[in-house]
C-alpha cells in the first residue's frame, strides 16, 4: 500500500498508542483487499459496545482507556438497553448499568453519543463523495444510495477509522464498484415505510450483494421510504448500495447500461413478503412495534397522529423506538404526550431485536439476563420481522404502520390490504 507521511507517522506512534494500533489494523485490512492507498474519511458511525455480549462493553472501555480520541465527527450505533429507562422495558439493573459504561467510554473518546441505527435523523448527514466508515448496514446503504457518500459494510474497524480519519481505498470507495449490476423493474405501487421495507427485502432476496438499479417507481420516494427500502435490501441480501436514477447522486437516466441482469418485482412479491412474516397468533400478540429502523421526526409525527385519542388494548404493549435526539425533538413539538396517553411506550437506544429479548446473545451469566417468553410480535418493518424470527425466535405479524396501530387498539391483527393485486 502507498501510505502517506501522515499514515506513516500514525504507524510510528505520533498519534499515540491507540491510534498506532488502529492504523496497523487498517493497513492489514487494506492489504487483504489490495487497496492502493488510504482515503481521508469525513465521518464514522461506530460500534456502541453491546452489554448483551460478553466482553463487548469492556472492548470499548479498553479502547477509550488506551487513549483513543475520535478525530472526525462520529455517531454511535444502537445498543442493548434504553439507558434512560431500562426498567421500563423489563431489563435488569445489571444490564442497564453495564450498558451505561459504554456511554461513558464514548464520551471520553469524543464520540457523538447518538446510540441509534438512524444517525442521519439525529443530524449526521454526510454528503456527496465524502468517504465514511459505518458499522450499521442500514447507514451504509442510506449513505451510498441517498446521500452519495461512500461506505462499505464495516464492522468494528469503523472505530479505527474514526480514531485515525483514514480507511483503505477498496469496495464502494472506488468508482468502479459504484455501478449497477441488476436492473430491477418495480411494477408494484408501494406506499409508506412498511411496504418499502418489503420492496427492499424482495429486491435483496434476488440481487444478493449486487448494486440494483431500481426503476419503475411511480413517484419519488420520501426520505423515510428510501431509508426503508435500503434497510430491507441490506437485511435479505448483502446490498450496500442501490441506484434510483434522479435520486442517487450523481446518477440520472443515463445510469442505465446494457447487459444488466433483469429483475421484476410486482405486487405478488410484496404480498409474499408480508404473508411470509405472518406466522403468529392473530389475537395473541404481546407487543406491537413501530420504528425499525429508528423513527425519524416525520414518523414520530405520523405515529402521534395515529395514536392521538386512542387507547392500546388490554394485554398489548406498543413500543415506538427512536433515537434520543429525535425523541427530544418530538418532546419539544408536543408529540410525546399523545403517544404516551394511548398507553404506548417511547423507547430509545435500543429496539426489540437489540434488547434482552434476543436469545442469540451471550450475556455474562452474572448479569442475570433472561429473555421473556413472548408469543408473537407485530411489526411494520421487514427488517424487524426478519430478526425477530432469527434472534428472538418468536412468531411475527407484519402489516403497515397504520394497520399496526389499529391492530394494537383492537387487540386483533389487521393484515395489509392488497391495493393493486
Amino acid at each position: 500500500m502507498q501510505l502517506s507521511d501522515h499514515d506513516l507517522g500514525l504507524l510510528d506512534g505520533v498519534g499515540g498508542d491507540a491510534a498506532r494500533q488502529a492504523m496497523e489494523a487498517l493497513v492489514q485490512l487494506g492489504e487483504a483487499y489490495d487497496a492502493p492507498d488510504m482515503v481521508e474519511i469525513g465521518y464514522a458511525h461506530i460500534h456502541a459496545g453491546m452489554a448483551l455480549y460478553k466482553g463487548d462493553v469492556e472492548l470499548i472501555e479498553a479502547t477509550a482507556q488506551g487513549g483513543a480520541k475520535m478525530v472526525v465527527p462520529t455517531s454511535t450505533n444502537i445498543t442493548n438497553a434504553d439507558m434512560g429507562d431500562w426498567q421500563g422495558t423489563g431489563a435488569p439493573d445489571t444490564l442497564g448499568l453495564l450498558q451505561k459504561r459504554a456511554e461513558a467510554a464514548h464520551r471520553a473518546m469524543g464520540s457523538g453519543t447518538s446510540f441509534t441505527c438512524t444517525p442521519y435523523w439525529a443530524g449526521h448527514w454526510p454528503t456527496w463523495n465524502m468517504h465514511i466508515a459505518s458499522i450499521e448496514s442500514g447507514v451504509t446503504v442510506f449513505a451510498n444510495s441517498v446521500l452519495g457518500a461512500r461506505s462499505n459494510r464495516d464492522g468494528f474497524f469503523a472505530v479505527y477509522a474514526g480514531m485515525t480519519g483514514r480507511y483503505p481505498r477498496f469496495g464502494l470507495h472506488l468508482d468502479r464498484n459504484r455501478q449497477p449490476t441488476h436492473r430491477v423493474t418495480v411494477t408494484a405501487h408501494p406506499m409508506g415505510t412498511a411496504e418499502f421495507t418489503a420492496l427492499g427485502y424482495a429486491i435483496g432476496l434476488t440481487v444478493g450483494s449486487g448494486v440494483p438499479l431500481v426503476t419503475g417507481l411511480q413517484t419519488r420516494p420520501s426520505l423515510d421510504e428510501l431509508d426503508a427500502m435500503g434497510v430491507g435490501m441490506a437485511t435479505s441480501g448483502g446490498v450496500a448500495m442501490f441506484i434510483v436514477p434522479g435520486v442517487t447522486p450523481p446518477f440520472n437516466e443515463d445510469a442505465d447500461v446494457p447487459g444488466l441482469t433483469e429483475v421484476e418485482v410486482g405486487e405478488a412479491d410484496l404480498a409474499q413478503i408480508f404473508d411470509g412474516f405472518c406466522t403468529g397468533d392473530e389475537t395473541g400478540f404481546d407487543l406491537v412495534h413501530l420504528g425499525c429502523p429508528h423513527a425519524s421526526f416525520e414518523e414520530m409525527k405520523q405515529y402521534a397522529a395515529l395514536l392521538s385519542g386512542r387507547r392500546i388494548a388490554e394485554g398489548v404493549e406498543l413500543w415506538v423506538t427512536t433515537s434520543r435526539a429525535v425523541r427530544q425533538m418530538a418532546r419539544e413539538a408536543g408529540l410525546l404526550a399523545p403517544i404516551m396517553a394511548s398507553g404506548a411506550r417511547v423507547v430509545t437506544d435500543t429496539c426489540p431485536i437489540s434488547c434482552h429479548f434476543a436469545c442469540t446473545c451471550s450475556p455474562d451469566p452474572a448479569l442475570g439476563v433472561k429473555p421473556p417468553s413472548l408469543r408473537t410480535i407485530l411489526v411494520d418493518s421487514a427488517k424487524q420481522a426478519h430478526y425477530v424470527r432469527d434472534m428472538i425466535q418468536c412468531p411475527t405479524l407484519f402489516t403497515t404502520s397504520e394497520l399496526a396501530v389499529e391492530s394494537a387498539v383492537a387487540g386483533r391483527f389487521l393484515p395489509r390490504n392488497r391495493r393493486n393485486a
Partner: protein
Amino acid sequence: MPEGVWQARGVVGGQAEGAALVSRTALSFLGDLDICSGVVVGRSSDLLGACVTGRVLVLPASRGSAGAWRFLFQLKVHDSHPAALVLKELPDPSVTQGAILSGVPMVVEPEAEFWEDLRDGDLLQVDGTIGRIARRNAE
C-alpha cells in the same frame, strides 16, 4: 491421506492447525452459530449440529448481517472459535475485520485442486501470512 500443499491468498496473517470442517453452503456468522458452544444451529447450513471450535472451517461463502465481525469476536471471547478460515472468495469486510480482531488466520481463493482433494477431517495447517494450506499425514 496423501500430504498436499495448496496456494491461496493470505488475508489474515498467522498460522494455525486443525481438522477440516467442510461446508458446501454459505454461513451467516450472525444467527447460524451458537456463540458459547461453537455449534452450528442454522437450519440452512449443511453443518447443522457440527462444532466449529478448533476446526479449520472451509466455506464457499459467508452471508448475512454486517454484524458478522461481532459474532466471530464473540467466538474468540468464549474460546469456541475456529482455528482458521478458508473461503472461496473474499468475504464482506465485516467478516475480515472480525477475523483480524480475533486473531483467526484466514485465506481465500485456494487453487482449484484444493476443492477436489479436500476431505472432511483432513488435518490442515493454514498459513495466512504467506497464503498456504498444507495437509499433514495423520499419525
